[in-house]
């Protein structure tokens, strides 16, 4: 992957070969656009009591109204931005923790590595949702707390990916050359090791975002979301009490979550194939077979 032209060519072949990657990417772009323009294209104010309570989907309210007569489509569109923001925020925190700890474990090796790897292993054993619930119950349901809590519960997979990548790179000639030239360990880590091994973690981002969105929705559904704000999980939380008479309050926000998760997973799978040439060869042989 050192050759830029080669890299570009492979990216193009990925685009051509992997239809699902393209579909996923389109889905993500759609959600991003809605997140950006949600407040403009929403037909009504999501907080205003605009119609009668529990109006079934009709031309006036495409996805119906909730218990207070608020338009569900508008809530969904306006909630998109916060969902995306939360996904980026939590993934960013997870990326930072994972990259730093993983790089330290992989680079320093020996006791540091065995200790940190053991620590990653333990953090993976703690039931993630239980921990997140407990943290939010202790520190409050504010959206910022939620972002930090989710970021702090999803990082171990990043750390393990980073560690593996650093292990494979730290004995390369350019790193040894830096050692001989007398560059300090920290400098080597920051300027040589991390930039050259971060690609696997970046590729993992879409799956991490999927986890963050799912975790937020689950927490909101359980009543641990920020009630001041509209997120997709929050709409379902409000709707579930009236679900028996108004199915649309639950069904549509759920479909929105599925659309986003599906897109993120398709892109994640595509990236995984892209970074693992072995899979790509299989894909090419599949093309020949067809």
């Amino acid at each position: 992957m050192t050759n830029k032209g080669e890299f570009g060519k492979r990216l193009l072949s990925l685009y051509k070969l992997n239809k699902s990657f393209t579909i996923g990417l389109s889905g993500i772009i759609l959600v991003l656009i809605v997140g950006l323009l949600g407040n403009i294209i929403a037909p009504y104010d999501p907080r205003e009591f605009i119609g009668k309570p529990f109006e079934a989907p009709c031309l006036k309210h495409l996805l119906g109204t909730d218990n207070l007569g608020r338009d569900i489509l508008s809530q969904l569109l306006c909630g998109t931005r916060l969902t995306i923001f939360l996904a980026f925020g939590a993934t960013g925190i997870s990326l930072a923790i994972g990259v730093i700890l993983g790089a330290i474990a992989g680079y320093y090796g020996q006791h540091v590595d065995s200790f940190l790897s053991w620590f990653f292993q333990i953090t993976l054993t703690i039931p993630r949702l239980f921990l997140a619930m407990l943290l939010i119950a202790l520190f409050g349901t504010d959206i910022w707390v939620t972002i930090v809590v989710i970021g702090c519960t999803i990082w171990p997979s990043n750390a393990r990916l980073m560690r593996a990548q650093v292990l494979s790179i730290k004995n390369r000639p350019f790193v040894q050359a830096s050692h001989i030239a007398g560059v300090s360990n920290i400098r080597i880590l920051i300027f040589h090791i991390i930039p050259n091994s971060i690609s696997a973690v970046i590729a993992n981002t879409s799956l991490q975002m999927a986890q963050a969105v799912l975790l937020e929705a689950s927490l909101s559904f359980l009543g641990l979301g920020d009630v001041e704000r509209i997120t997709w999980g929050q709409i379902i939380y409000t709707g579930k009490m009236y679900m028996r008479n108004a199915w649309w309050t639950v069904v549509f926000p759920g479909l929105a979550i599925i659309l986003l998760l599906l897109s993120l997973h398709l892109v994640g799978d595509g990236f995984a194939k892209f970074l693992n040439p072995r899979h790509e060869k299989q894909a090419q042989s599949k093309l020949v077979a067809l």
Partner: protein
Amino acid sequence: MASLNRYAIRRLFQAIPALLVVIVLAFLLIQLSPGDPAWVLAGDNASPEYVEQVRQRYGFDRPLPEQLWLYIKTVASGDLGYSLTYHLPVAKLIADRIPASILLLLAGELLAAIVGTALGAFSAKSHPSALDSALSSITLSLYCMPTFWTGLILILVFSVWTKGFLPASGMYSVPRMHGLAYVFDVLKHMILPSITIFIYNMPTYFRLTRASVFEIMHEDFVTTARFIGINEREVFYRHCLRNAILPSVTMAGLGLGNLLGGALITETVFSWPGIGRLMYDAIFARDFPLAMGILIIGAMTVIVATLVTDIAYAFLDPRIRYSKS
């Protein structure tokens, strides 16, 4: 066998510090939470005398390292504290709820493991085909369905719209039946929640098995088996599938942490009287001794399950016990 025993003992010694770390983490959470730790454990409405009692018991008036030592000692002796809402020992409350959770998880998880693994192998074998693509798309869509949403939709379809065709909440009807009628009643209540857990877990087994069958079908020993004239059927079942099932075994142990999360949501949606529902109630009643107790027990269960699967894995695959020693 000697090497297997050695491996098992070594893994057992690695598991003990892991348990300690979980207890330390629980301790840190209490310390880091806003406010006086004694108040956190005594509850918002506790009398000053009770707060003082809790402070003494956990030694919150002493230096931090001493507090930690005392906390570890208390938890290690099986004393998880007293529930604020139920006024019962936490350990007893958890023990009472475990059977209901196991019943539900076992049904859903077993079904998921068997169907997921079988479909995954079948899908990989038929690749490339429309069937393989269809199965992959369907399972990916199931994989992306939030558990709580799956549960709600199942309730809508099979209980609300079909006028109570299947029960949507609880573990048995009130008044409680007796004998065989009770068993059937519980089974009927189990259907929807176990399908929810099945949908939550099946895709993982499917994806894992499908990927590993793919990987193994391109290994040299499989090619060799084909070259020496073993028929395709036997190559697949004896050489591919047997090796491809291993990741599913690991998944069954390692995935338990996630499974507990899924169980919590499922039990909450269906008001199933298990550990997950207990955790949910504890969080909302701000019953922190109970919530901490469940977190510790949950993590311990996962550690033990990981240990058991690791040993099972070493038993199935001799390379593991030799490589690390």
